[in-house]
């Protein structure tokens, strides 16, 4: 057996380190600058919490933050419910057109968000739904739904159906089977899918951007507007908060749903 030489092992570790630096340095720089007193990002660093204090009185950003959270929570609930139901249907039944319906889950993921977003703008405007929070909710759920179906289906794939049949033969009604056998097994998958849906909505910029109206927008849209207008460390502060929320969420998903697999 040949083992990788020591030299190669060290080299590969260094390489991984460089990739991680590339991925994290900009984020760390941004976070550090949000604590820097100089609005021109001058160094050396002079620590301050002023920019976070300024956030507390920035109503525009606070309102946008509340909108973002509301949208993300509603998206999570609706997408989890509809998506889990669809995943159950695909798992349980064979029917004509099943394959087509499964393929139809991919356009919302595969078509660039720019096109999805602008087509929503056209259609919603045209039939009178208009723009605003309700339109964004429609859009966010559509983007999150396919992911929920995929994640829950993956969990279902490992489900032993004889368990359901055993429960049936012991006299449980279909609803009881669902309540006491299927759903408890599914729960980790549904929770992971729900957290996924939350992240999709909370981080969504493109679709929200096209469906926002002045005064009613979400954090990413407000951050974008602020960046384009010329930014201050206040933007760093809110951006740091936003990225912290999504990273914590993803760590939670990772605990429930092993991405890397175990081997």
């Amino acid at each position, binding site marked *: 057996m040949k083992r990788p030489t020591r030299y190669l092992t060290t080299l590969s570790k260094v390489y991984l380190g460089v*990739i991680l630096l590339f991925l*994290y340095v900009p984020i760390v720089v*941004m976070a550090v*600058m949000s604590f820097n007193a100089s609005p021109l990002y001058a160094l050396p660093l002079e620590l301050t919490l002023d920019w976070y204090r300024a956030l507390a009185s920035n109503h525009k950003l606070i309102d946008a933050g509340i909108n973002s959270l509301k949208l993300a929570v509603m998206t999570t609930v609706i997408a989890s419910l509809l998506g889990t139901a669809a995943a159950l249907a695909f798992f349980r039944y064979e*029917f004509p057109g099943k394959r087509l319906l499964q393929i139809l889950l991919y356009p919302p993921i595969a078509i660039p968000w720019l096109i999805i977003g602008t087509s929503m703008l056209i259609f919603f405007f045209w039939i009178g739904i208009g723009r605003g929070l309700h339109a964004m909710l429609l859009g966010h759920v559509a983007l999150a*739904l396919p992911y929920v*179906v995929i994640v829950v289906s993956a969990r279902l794939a490992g489900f032993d159906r004889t368990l359901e049949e055993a429960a049936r033969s012991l006299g449980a009604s279909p609803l009881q089977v669902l309540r006491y056998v299927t759903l408890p097994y599914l729960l980790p998958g549904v929770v992971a899918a729900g957290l996924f849906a939350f992240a999709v909505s909370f981080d969504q910029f493109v679709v929200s951007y096209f469906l926002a109206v002045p005064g009613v927008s979400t954090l990413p849209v407000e951050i974008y507007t602020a960046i384009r207008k010329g930014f201050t460390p206040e933007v*760093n502060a809110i951006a740091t908060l936003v990225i912290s929320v999504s990273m914590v969420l993803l760590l939670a998903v990772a605990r429930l749903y092993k*991405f890397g697999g175990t081997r």
Partner: protein
Amino acid sequence: MSDKADIQRRPVNRALPVLLGPAYLWLAVTVFLPLSAMVYFSFLSETPIGGREAVWTLSNYGEFFDKAFYRTLMWRSFRLGAEVTLLCFLFGFPCAYVLAKMVKGRWREALFLLVILPFWSNALVRIFSWTMVLRGNGVLERLVNVFLPDVGSLNLMFTYPAILIGLVHSYLPYMILTCYISIQAIDDDLIEAARSMGAGRFTVFRRILLPLALPGIMAGSILTFVPVIGSFMEPRLLGGRNGTFIGTVIEDQFTAVFNWPLGAALSFIMLGFVLIVLLLAAPMIRRAST
């Protein structure tokens, strides 16, 4: 439809529309009807809102083929997509290999998580964070000047390389994730066997790793290439005046110029080109999925 006889066929019952109806009704209203409406709009002479009369026309599509401007932009966007995809592969594949085959146990789990953590975090914020690093007198410039005082100003911000860096940063975790999954599935014994029979590292890479990891590479490439073609926020923030691509022109039609029919037509032409590229890559994708 599945033709597997062993799948127990339950009668299609009333539960089916209840379970599937809401999800697909939602998708119909938010994705499929809007895309159809966009097709319709792309053939109109004007945005039919506010009482304006619109007639059927092909001129929006004609515009693209008449004006070199749009063709140049489409080409620029495709070049950007290809370059970002290639860079992601060049940097991501070795990283995926090291993670899958050279790091073991707990370390692997932790490192893997660290690599894909940025993948779902806010794309806009991550692009914004690069402006801190790349701007004149920013972190990168200072760092370079500490070691190489003669270089002076790098002037990276608002250039094509800045857009490349930002987009590679955005999509690298995607490529690492998909490559990692397929490399991990390769049996170590296969590599050992080849090595013990005298294959060099490069031969192992070319004859074993590359073909067996092809599904992951193709998936990662598609997942990178397609969204990059349609990107507009990244070129705007990092490219400034140099950041005009087909995506930014489409965005302009909807948010600044209000020429929705032209925007719709350009969107579908873009989708069409993406489809052609995917079809050209289809033999490779098919080989990858068998």
